[in-house]
């Protein structure tokens, strides 16, 4: 499989502080993969995402995006392949209106005006913000801002989508809808997704899960494998997914539970079987 992102021995410190915020991180992501990244506050997730987007440059190590080695000469080409939703949407609004803002990502892509208008309109419809096209981004609610930021990326149709806690302020139904929408668009446009999130149940849908701890990539693999390692997850300040959480609590109460990873409906089925077999 084709590696669309490759990070090798990434080391980075912020100016004036010699702590390695990225401490020798290496990984590859293949084209079309959905990778979720979890880790405690301050572990380096946003820094890593910014390094891939060329928003900060590594002290040493290498980032290759879609065959281009990231450096001063390639940074604009690299960035044009990536749609990035920042942790705080306020840091990304540039347009005077919602529509202008969504169009911004398209402007240096040489699309004609009519196409641009159509793409903006379609993207705003997909995130259910078309009624707000003429509003000022600053006068939106928190969740509305996050939806508009997502529309910007959807309109751009990039090869790579990086989402830094992009759904943290959506209502439960909206969050589910947006995640389904992204999975659907990914099928259609075959883009690659890196998503940073604190919502452990959301990560179960990823192809692969990375755990970052104090600047190091301490674990990576299929969600089933990582999410069943409750000892590691709890030690690192993270959460257990719903099914594993129930199993963990039951085990503490001296109930014997299966070892392998189970999602919540599997746990429910298993418990109901246990109960009926007792009668």
């Amino acid at each position, binding site marked *: 499989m084709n590696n669309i992102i490759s990070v090798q021995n990434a080391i980075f410190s912020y100016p004036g502080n010699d702590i390695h915020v990225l401490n020798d991180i290496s990984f590859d992501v293949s084209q079309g993969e959905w990778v979720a990244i979890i880790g405690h506050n301050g572990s380096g997730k946003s820094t890593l995402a910014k390094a891939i987007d060329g928003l900060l440059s590594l002290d040493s190590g290498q980032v290759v995006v879609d065959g281009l080695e990231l450096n001063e000469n390639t940074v604009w080409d690299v960035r044009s392949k990536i749609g990035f939703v920042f942790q705080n949407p306020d840091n990304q609004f540039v347009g005077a209106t919602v529509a202008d803002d969504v169009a911004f990502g398209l402007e240096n892509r040489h699309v004609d005006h009519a196409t641009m208008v159509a793409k903006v309109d379609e993207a705003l419809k997909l995130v259910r913000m078309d009624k707000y096209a003429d509003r000022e981004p600053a006068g939106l609610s928190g969740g509305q801002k996050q939806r508009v930021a997502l529309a910007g990326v959807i309109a751009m149709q990039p090869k790579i989508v990086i989402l830094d806690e992009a759904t943290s302020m959506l209502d439960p139904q909206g969050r589910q809808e947006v995640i389904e929408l992204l999975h659907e668009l990914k099928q259609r446009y075959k883009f690659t997704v890196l998503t940073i999130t604190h919502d452990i149940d959301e990560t179960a849908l990823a192809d692969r899960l990375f755990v970052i701890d104090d600047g190091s990539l301490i674990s990576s693999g299929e969600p089933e494998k990582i999410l069943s390692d409750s000892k590691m997850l709890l030690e690192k300040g*993270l959460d257990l997914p719903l099914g594993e959480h129930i199993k963990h609590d039951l085990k503490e109460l001296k109930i014997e539970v299966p070892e392998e990873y189970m999602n919540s409906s599997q746990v429910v089925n298993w418990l109901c079987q246990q109960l009926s077999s007792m009668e």
Partner: protein
Amino acid sequence: MSTIEFNGVNFSYQVGTPFEVNALHDINVRISDRSYTAIVGHTGSGKSTLIQLLDGLIRPTTGTIKVGNETISSTSSNSELGKIRSKIGFVFQFPENQLFEETVLKDISFGPQNFGKSEDEAIVLAKEAMQLVGLDDSLAQRSPFELSGGQMRRVAIAGVLAMKPEILILDEPTAGLDPRGQRETMQLFSQLHRKNNINVILVTHQMEDAAAFANQVLVMNDGNLVKAGSPNEIFSNPEGLIGNHLTIPKTTKVANELTKGGFRFDPYPLTLEELSRQVAKQLESGSN
């Protein structure tokens, strides 16, 4: 004493312009002293607008709000609003919007100093608050803008706690916190509510938190307050929630499914821990 009462409150942004947005319609509700109220509702339903009215950040277009003996209306003066504001600690939806000082320590000690504490006293309060929210000492001299998202959130919360407010208003305070941080901060707020009798008003999208901690839940939909009740009343009616773009708490969902498979719950569990306790009991009682 700080009972809060909304009486016929309407609010519009940019009144009289073509961009006027009617964000709240005829809100009537009572939030009693020393209570813990959760406000839930879809994106854009008016939650942040509602609580910003309490802090005098915006004034009602029509109607009045009573906070203890003070009244907020469209004609309230800044000095009247200032009196109310001094009782309230407000954590904004986006932490960056409330950080401004050169260092983390200065930022957190600003509030207490502003309300009359000496610099030394304020620093003691600030360091205490840093510890409560899990901010490492090594960050004290850092600029609050050179932090990770979750660290900024912790600074914003610490700044509010250091003021020792009577009323704590929290706009999605755990967004951006890691799971342990979310658990610990929710515990902290709950403790302040129980031990120090602080009135807590929490805006949240985490139905689990609303169910586990609040004694009153308000449901907003499109600028209207559509429901007010105990967590049990609100969350035992899944249809009502879905109609308002919300979901039932994960715990309730699992409990419902287990009930279909023969488990019985009494009382209905509002936390996973409680659910597991009741499940374990039923599995044990059968085995002997």
